Each structure stands twice: as structure tokens, then as C-alpha cells.
């Protein structure tokens, strides 16, 4: 590796391009957010940022600064895809972005010696460098003090102490960046070649620098994090605690959100009644009440669940527990042939498979990475939540099981665990067949526990709620309108002598939706589903939540709310008088949704991350097909075994 020529000559009015780099989990993105005022995702574990992110702000001298946040890296010898992204930007090999004018290296003040390895490599790239000595508050709490002038002198670059999470040191850092652009690059001490001799010499030099510039009080034998870890990472207590935390999360998502859900439902009902009352009876009123309010309203009531799920995920990410969960699962991961690092992308999949698949960029081995990409969508994402919640509320009684956990919460937990267990089983299968290869040991840095920042979690929850509402007001609204039309036309010749319910049923069966449903009914009949469920499943390939809105439209709950939909599902009968929905069918349906890949975005991200072009499409095809087979087979097995055991 050779250092290319320095940055292009700066024009007076051109924005200053600054790249942020540093070891994983040093607070680069927190610093990026503090400088730019943006709200990129942060977390207390390595590998949160896996792609280049840009933001702009004004330097104290009034000049515009374009800040590029890069994925974390331990050295400039890139192994993983996310590390290669950082290296390409710094070397000017990323054709989509010019080489930066200044590099901002973020180092963790608590682990200065280890962090200086990357910093010293960056100093040899021939670019002006500024070092942000971040988390100096945590270092002070650990009894570490710094001689900043000595550090600046030894490194030959400006060193600015910061506490990014509290915005401390941001103004001096801005001034340092503006000044760095006018200074020459730091002196080169070592060759950039990655040989053992160079690494040894570099570490020796770092040792001397640290000895001069850092004073450490005798470290306490036992930190708070150590004491917590003795329980959290205990061989028996650790996994039990993990299960307990997951149980609390899903019970809370299910039952704690109920009062808020009732409030939203009441609001939707009030607005629906008001608007419905203003319109005369006819197709327009039917469109508004049976299409828009039945469809969008049925999905909208799940907003509290979504907010609560993301709040819990935020707490787990920011506290440092995510890394512990990955550590606990390392043994299991190795047994199924996956790298321990794979568990963090899988946990991210609980929120959404797209960032989960992106997070696999931290995995060096291509086969490990591909196996993880293929199984991440089996982790139940937030879009499945409305489907689970509707079916559990309708068919699972709230029988108390343990203090704070009832059967509804346990069923929700079971669905999430089923996805996780199947993801591990499929990973084992892929690693033993298509993606055979050696299992590599995991080196994982356990960050210290930190109190989650309430503002940061509130911002994350707010962002997710806005996205959910926007989706309800656009895609789901449009799909609900289209589904209403398909359920309304063509019209049947109504027999006025028939009761209203029978006329509606005849119209639905005669409609385009009904005809399509009856055509596909033989395909879903082995799963115990009627044509209405079949149609809802097909519609939800556009978006999983559309299952709920389609149900709302089909059952014409109109402005009567989600409770009315639950009542409709419970009382729905087949032609032979048997209940159309039973607890067994509801469980089978949930199993179908646990396994099925019904997300265009996930397919697209798999195509891109599994290998561009035909290879990416092939792997996406494998992923879609095996998940559909699992969904169909799983739902069929539940219904068949359940019936054999005497359940309806």
C-alpha cells in the first residue's frame, strides 16, 4: 500500500471535505451528529455505521464543511467490506467522492494506546489530520489524565479533547478543522506497508507517546461493567437473563401499548364517523369509510407497538447489551457454522432486515457473510408486528403464565424465537452445503455499559413513527383504495330481498378480488385458509401490514375500528358453518408470516449485497424460494399436526 499524492489544491469557495475515521465504537457518528446536527443512527457496539454517510455544516470561519462519516476500522489493512469503504475514501479510490481535504481521527480516550495504531497509519497518508480525543469524561472517571500539548507535539497534529455525546469540544474541533486545511500534513514515521516489523515498531513508538502524554491512576480491580458482566455473561444466568429481557420486551410491546392503541383507535373512529357522516350514501362514502378508514385505520392503530419496539431496541443498543448478547450467542453461532459477529446483524433484523443485511459488511469471510445475509430476513421485523398483534388479540387468551407475562406476550415471544431458531438452523444448513468453509473465532470488544441517552432514543422513536405514518398515508392508503375498488367492482345484480350481510357477501364473491381469491383458493386450502386469507396474503407481498388493511376492507369494518375487525374474524363462518378462523389457523398464519419473505426492499438489498448482477439475483432467488417453502411447509405442518392432535 502506498500513500497517494496529497489533497487537491483547495479553492477559496469550495467546501472543505473532512472524513471521520476511527476504531469501531469510539463515537464517530455521535461526533458527526454533534457537528452536523443530523440524526444518524448511533449505538454502543462495534459496526453500527457500515456505509459512507455525508453531512454539511459551517466552520467557525464561515466556510462550508462537508463531513463524511466512515465505518469503523482497526487499521488501514482492510479485511471486511465496511473497512474497504473507509480505505477507498481515504486513498481517493472511491470514484463517487473526491479525496478528503482533512481527516478527523476519532480516538477513544480510554483506549488511547490501541486507537493510536490506526491514527498513526492515517498520519502517513499525506493528508492534514486532526485528532478528536473522545470520551475524555469516561477516561477521567477511570482515573486517566492527558497532557494534551505533549500529545499534540508527539503526534504532530492538533489533538482536541471532546465528549461528543454532550457536545463538549465541538467548537474547538471546528476551529481545528478549519486551521488544519492550511497546515502541512503530519510527518511520516513508518512505511505504510503492513509487515510485522513495521507493526512492532509502530506499537513501540505508540508506547513511548502514551507513556509521555497519559497518566493512569492504578486501575480499579473491579469496574461497574465488570460486576454487571459477571451476571450478564454468566453461563447459566446470562442466557436466562437474555430470554427474560426478550420476554419483557415482547410482553410490553403487546400489553403496555394497549391503552395508547385504544386511544388511537378512538381517534380514528371519531374522525371516520365525522367524515362518513358528511358524505351521502354511495360509492364515494364507501370508498372513504370501507376503503380508506377500514384499510389505513386498521394499520394506524399499531403505531404504539412500533414506537415501543424501537424504544426497547434503542435502549438495548445504547446500553452496551447488544455486544453482550452477541458474546453470549457466540457458542451457538459457532455450532451452526457462523461467525459470532453474525449475531449483531441478526439482532438488527428485529427492527428491519435492510439494515441487518447492511450490517453484515462487518463480516470478513464472504461465505460467513452470505450465509448471514440469507437468514437475516427470518428475524421478525417490525412490519410483522401488526399481523402478529391482530391475530394474537383475536385468538390467544390473556391467560397469566408468570408474573408480568401472559399467554399473549409468550405467543409473541414464541414467534420471534421461532424466527431466530429457524435462522440458526438454516445458517447451519447453508454452511454445511452451499457455503461450506472453516469457522473462524470471534474477537469482540465489549464496550462499557452506558446509560442510554433519552433524547437520542426519543429521536429514533420519533423518526420511526414518522416513517410509519408516512407509509400509512401513502403506500397503504393507495393500496387500500385499489383493494376497495377490486372488492367493489364489477357489481352484482343485488337481490333486494336478501339481508344486507348476504348481499355484501354476494358482492364480494362477485368482485374482481373475490374471483381472484376463489381462483387461488386451492393453493391455500391445504393450509386451512379460505379465499379471503389467500387474497390478504397475496396483497401483503406489497407490504406485510397490508394483510391487516386487506382484512379491514374485505370485512368492511369501515369506521368501526380494529376491535370490530377482531370480532369479525372470531365470528366468520365458512359455507359449511365451521369457523373460518380458529386459534390453530391463526398460529399457522403467524408461522407463515414468520418465515415468508414479503419485502421488496429486502430482496433488493440482498441483490446488491450478495454480489452485483446475476449472482446477486441468484442468491436473492434462493432466499425468496427457501423462505416461501418454509412458510408454506411450516403453516401446513402446524395445521396438519394440530388437527391430528384433535384441535380444530
Amino acid at each position, binding site marked *: 500500500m502506498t500513500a497517494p499524492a496529497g489533497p487537491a489544491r483547495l479553492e477559496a469557495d469550495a467546501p472543505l471535505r473532512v472524513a471521520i475515521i476511527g476504531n469501531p465504537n469510539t463515537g464517530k457518528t455521535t461526533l458527526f451528529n454533534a457537528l452536523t446536527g443530523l440524526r444518524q443512527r448511533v449505538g454502543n457496539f462495534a459496526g453500527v455505521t457500515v456505509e459512507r454517510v455525508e453531512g454539511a455544516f459551517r466552520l467557525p470561519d464561515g466556510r462550508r464543511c462537508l463531513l463524511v462519516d466512515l465505518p469503523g476500522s482497526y487499521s488501514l489493512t482492510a479485511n471486511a467490506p465496511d473497512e474497504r469503504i473507509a480505505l477507498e475514501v481515504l486513498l481517493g479510490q472511491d470514484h463517487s467522492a473526491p479525496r478528503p481535504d482533512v481527516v478527523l481521527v476519532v480516538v477513544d480516550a480510554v483506549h488511547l494506546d490501541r486507537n493510536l495504531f490506526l491514527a498513526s497509519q492515517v498520519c502517513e497518508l499525506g493528508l492534514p489530520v486532526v485528532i478528536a480525543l473522545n470520551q475524555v469524561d469516561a477516561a477521567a472517571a477511570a482515573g486517566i489524565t492527558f497532557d494534551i500539548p505533549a500529545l499534540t507535539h508527539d503526534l504532530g497534529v492538533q489533538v482536541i479533547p471532546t465528549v461528543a455525546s454532550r457536545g463538549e469540544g465541538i467548537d474547538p474541533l471546528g476551529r481545528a478543522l478549519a486551521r488544519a486545511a492550511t497546515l502541512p500534513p503530519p510527518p511520516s514515521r513508518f512505511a505504510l506497508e503492513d509487515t510485522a516489523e513495521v507493526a512492532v515498531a509502530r506499537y513501540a513508538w505508540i508506547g513511548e507517546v502514551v507513556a509521555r502524554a497519559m497518566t493512569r491512576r492504578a486501575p480499579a480491580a473491579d469496574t461497574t461493567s465488570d460486576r454487571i458482566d459477571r451476571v450478564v455473561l454468566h453461563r447459566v444466568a446470562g442466557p436466562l437473563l437474555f430470554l427474560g429481557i426478550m420476554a419483557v420486551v415482547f410482553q410490553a410491546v403487546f400489553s403496555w401499548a394497549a391503552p395508547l392503541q385504544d386511544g388511537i383507535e378512538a381517534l380514528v373512529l371519531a374522525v371516520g364517523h365525522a367524515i362518513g357522516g358528511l358524505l351521502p350514501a354511495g360509492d364515494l362514502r364507501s370508498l372513504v369509510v370501507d376503503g380508506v378508514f377500514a384499510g389505513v385505520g386498521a394499520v394506524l392503530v399499531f403505531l404504539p407497538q412500533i414506537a415501543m419496539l424501537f424504544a426497547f431496541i434503542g435502549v438495548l443498543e445504547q446500553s452496551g447489551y447488544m455486544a453482550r448478547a452477541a458474546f453470549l450467542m457466540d457458542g451457538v453461532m459457532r455450532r451452526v457454522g457462523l461467525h459470532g459477529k453474525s449475531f449483531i446483524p441478526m439482532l438488527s433484523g428485529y427492527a428491519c432486515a435492510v439494515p441487518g443485511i447492511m450490517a453484515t459488511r462487518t463480516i470478513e469471510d464472504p461465505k460467513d457473510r452470505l450465509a448471514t445475509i440469507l437468514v437475516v430476513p427470518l428475524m421478525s421485523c417490525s412490519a410483522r408486528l401488526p399481523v402478529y398483534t391482530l391475530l394474537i388479540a383475536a385468538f390467544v387468551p390473556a391467560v397469566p403464565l408468570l408474573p408480568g407475562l401472559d399467554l399473549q406476550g409468550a405467543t409473541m415471544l414464541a414467534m420471534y424465537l421461532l424466527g431466530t431458531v429457524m435462522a440458526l438452523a438454516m445458517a447451519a444448513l447453508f454452511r454445511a452445503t452451499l457455503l461450506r468453509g472453516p469457522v473462524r473465532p470471534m474477537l469482540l470488544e465489549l464496550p462499557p455499559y452506558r446509560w442510554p441517552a433519552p433524547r437520542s432514543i426519543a429521536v429514533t422513536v420519533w423518526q420511526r413513527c414518522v416513517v410509519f405514518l408516512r407509509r400509512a398515508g401513502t403506500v397503504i392508503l393507495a393500496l387500500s383504495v385499489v383493494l376497495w375498488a377490486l372488492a367493489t367492482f364489477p357489481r352484482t345484480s343485488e337481490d333486494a330481498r336478501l339481508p344486507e350481510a348476504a348481499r355484501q357477501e354476494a358482492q364480494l364473491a362477485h368482485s374482481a378480488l373475490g374471483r381472484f381469491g376463489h381462483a387461488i383458493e386451492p393453493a391455500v386450502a391445504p393450509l386451512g385458509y379460505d379465499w379471503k386469507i389467500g387474497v390478504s396474503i397475496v396483497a401483503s407481498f406489497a407490504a406485510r401490514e397490508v394483510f391487516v388493511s386487506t382484512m379491514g376492507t374485505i370485512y368492511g369494518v369501515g369506521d368501526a375500528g380494529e376491535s370490530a375487525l377482531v370480532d369479525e374474524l372470531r365470528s366468520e363462518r365458512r359455507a359449511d358453518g365451521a369457523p373460518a378462523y380458529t386459534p390453530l389457523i391463526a398460529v399457522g398464519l403467524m408461522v407463515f408470516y414468520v418465515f415468508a419473505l414479503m419485502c421488496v*426492499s429486502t430482496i433488493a438489498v440482498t441483490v446488491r449485497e450478495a454480489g452485483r448482477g446475476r449472482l446477486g439475483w441468484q442468491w436473492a432467488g434462493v432466499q425468496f424460494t427457501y423462505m416461501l417453502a418454509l412458510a408454506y411447509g411450516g403453516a401446513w405442518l402446524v395445521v396438519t399436526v394440530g388437527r391430528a392432535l384433535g384441535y380444530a
Partner: protein
Amino acid sequence: MRPDTWLALAVVAGAVGYLVRRAVRSSRARRASGPGCDACGH
């Protein structure tokens, strides 16, 4: 057909147009800069 039926059908046509335009745009955007998730904003 009654006027309100025409109006309802116009809304349906608008919804179909929106979905088609969105599908075309997102396929172009995905080719250009990679996918994002509508459900969570990632």
C-alpha cells in the same frame, strides 16, 4: 353511473397512478444508489 361513482373511480385511478410511479421511481433509485426500506426508513 352516478357522479360519486365517477369521483370514486377517479380517486382509484390516482391511487393506481401513484403506485405505478412510485414503483418506477424506486426501481430507478435502487439502481442508482441502492435500496432503502419504506417500513423503517433505513
